[in-house]
């Protein structure tokens, strides 16, 4: 187990820079999720940590030791791949035991280790099968067992759930979280799925265009997005973003929106509010008058999209809420949970002290 430090890490192919001078300190035992849309450099960053990709510049430290010039096998890390990366010609037992075989562990000892690792991921009954005789979820558990059979200094997981179906994804996600907690191994996890990031991470690094846009706990990132990109990327449905302006401590936008804000900023601003922080009320009540654009029942809630002066706001209403399209409602904003952004820099404007 070890901390991982990235210093000014850059990866470029010709004119294209995939990762731009990124620095990131991952603590010993931490579950760090690199989150971002495809092409944001998250997988490249992970592959550089693994040693499968050579950095153009910058340093990678694992446990305080600079590993730039070490081969993957010398870095003492374990990796789980998106398409599992299993050895198709070997049995499940041989797949799981391969890292120990390479380390010269004897047959009897190895079999015991394989069994222990396989039991941890509930694969004990499949040891003699070939990977092609397993389901996708079982294959990914073989990859997990192969990672946990030795106690590496870090786990690297590259979108390990994206080839699984929705139901399996939820249960495997829980297994990964439990395993990481139990083993306490530093973990770097790459995903484009914000739910995975929210549920698994101790801290999340949201990446875009080769840069880390925000680093923080899932709560930080959800409640206080650092810029407009993070605000729009995290959350489903996404945070409502309204362009308007701030005068004398009040944010105003077309459609009669006017709320008191606690920022010192004046002039053009973007107000962000999450759907669950908008309350749907009978017409005439609340802060804003709106008309219903559409209503969607998701099961645990009713998603209301409302038209406010040409802008559309989504609000999460009680699951019992019913109303026809076009009918009038009122919306109340939870002013303690507002985010204000500068439309020029796209950055969040902090509350005035």
């Amino acid at each position, binding site marked *: 187990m070890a901390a991982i430090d990235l210093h000014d890490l850059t990866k470029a192919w010709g004119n294209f820079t995939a990762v731009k001078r990124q620095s990131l300190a991952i603590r010993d035992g931490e579950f760090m999720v690199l989150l971002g849309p495809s092409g944001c450099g998250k997988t490249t960053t992970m592959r550089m940590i*693994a*040693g*499968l990709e050579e950095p153009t510049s910058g340093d990678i430290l694992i446990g305080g030791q600079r590993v730039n010039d070490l*081969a*993957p*096998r010398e*870095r003492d*890390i*374990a*990796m789980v*791949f*998106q*398409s*599992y*990366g*299993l*050895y*198709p*010609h070997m049995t499940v037992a041989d797949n799981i035991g*391969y*890292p120990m075989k*390479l*380390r010269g562990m004897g047959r009897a000892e190895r079999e015991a280790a394989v069994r222990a690792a396989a039991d941890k991921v509930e694969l004990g009954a499949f040891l003699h099968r070939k*990977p*092609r005789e397993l389901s996708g979820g079982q*294959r990914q558990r073989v*990859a997990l067992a*192969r990672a946990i059979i030795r106690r590496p200094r870090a786990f*690297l997981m590259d979108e390990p759930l994206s080839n699984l179906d929705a139901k399996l994804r939820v249960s495997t996600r829980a297994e990964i979280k439990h395993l990481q907690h139990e083993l306490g191994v530093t973990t770097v996890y790459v995903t484009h799925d914000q739910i995975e990031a929210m549920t698994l991470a101790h801290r999340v690094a949201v990446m875009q265009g080769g840069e880390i846009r925000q680093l923080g706990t899932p709560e930080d990132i959800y409640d206080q997005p650092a810029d407009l990109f993070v605000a729009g990327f995290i959350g489903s449905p996404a945070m409502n973003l309204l362009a308007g302006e701030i005068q004398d401590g009040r944010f105003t936008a077309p459609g009669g929106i006017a709320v008191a804000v606690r920022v010192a900023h004046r002039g053009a601003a973007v107000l962000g509010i999450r759907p669950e922080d908008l309350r749907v009320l009978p017409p005439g009540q609340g802060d804003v008058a709106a008309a219903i654009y559409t209503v969607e029942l998701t099961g645990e809630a009713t998603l209301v999209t409302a038209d406010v002066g040409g802008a559309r706001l989504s609000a999460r209403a009680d699951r019992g809420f019913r109303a026809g399209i076009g009918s009038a409602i009122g919306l109340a904003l939870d002013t303690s949970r507002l985010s204000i952004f500068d439309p020029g820099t796209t950055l969040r404007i902090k509350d005035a002290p």
Partner: protein
Amino acid sequence: MRAVRTALLLAVLFLILFPIAWMALTAFKRPVDLLGLSLFFTPTLDNFRTIFSHPWNIGRTLWNSTVVAALTVLIAIPAATLAAYSFSRFEMRFKTGLFFLILATQFVPAVVVVLPFYLLFRDLGLLDTHWALVIVNLAIVTPFAVWMLKGFLDAVPAESEEAALVDGATRLRVIIDIVVPMVWPGVVVTTVFCFVLTWNEFLFALILTRDDAVTLPVGITRFRTERGDLWELIAAAGILISIPMFFLSSIIQRHFVTGMTGGAVK
């Protein structure tokens, strides 16, 4: 339409199979039956007995062919596998050019280089030895093997290899433990192809051998004697040359099937 197609297919089949069938029949004929077209004759194994005994001693040439083909393949396939892997996986300067150059060595007609080769091996004292033929055949076979194997290797996804690298394997271990088993059908097919090419090689064997290292295809020409062409013996030796090919083609067939159903786990 269907009848025309059937007739065409039969005609093609006849063209291909007739010489082989004729050879097979001739090999079992006595010299008196040789020029008769009748399918009814008294079959005999005398021809095979004759070619294995003095003065023909075809057993010796059979051994030579086997040694040369086996040694060639044993050296060519591992070397070609490593070369093909490098071309498939690593970035290098002038990669396309180099890869083309490997095959370009085969663009020179063999007749043009056979004399220089003769002089070379004479000076090295390798004339009429197995090694002379092995070296020449390696030069012929390895470029083809590199090209064929690269095709098979390109089709293997890199993820399993990367997993093995992270799991603690060196590059060579990855090739031996992971890559070769995954492209095994391709390795077998390439091996058989190279074996056949070497087994049937004629020109270099003719020029570079005299007595000790003569191979089967060259050995057959000895049945054209001052007494005339001994067709029954030529046919018997022809059968001998063909037998390994039949076995090898069945191996290829089997591996092509597994090659298509096997492969990586997605």
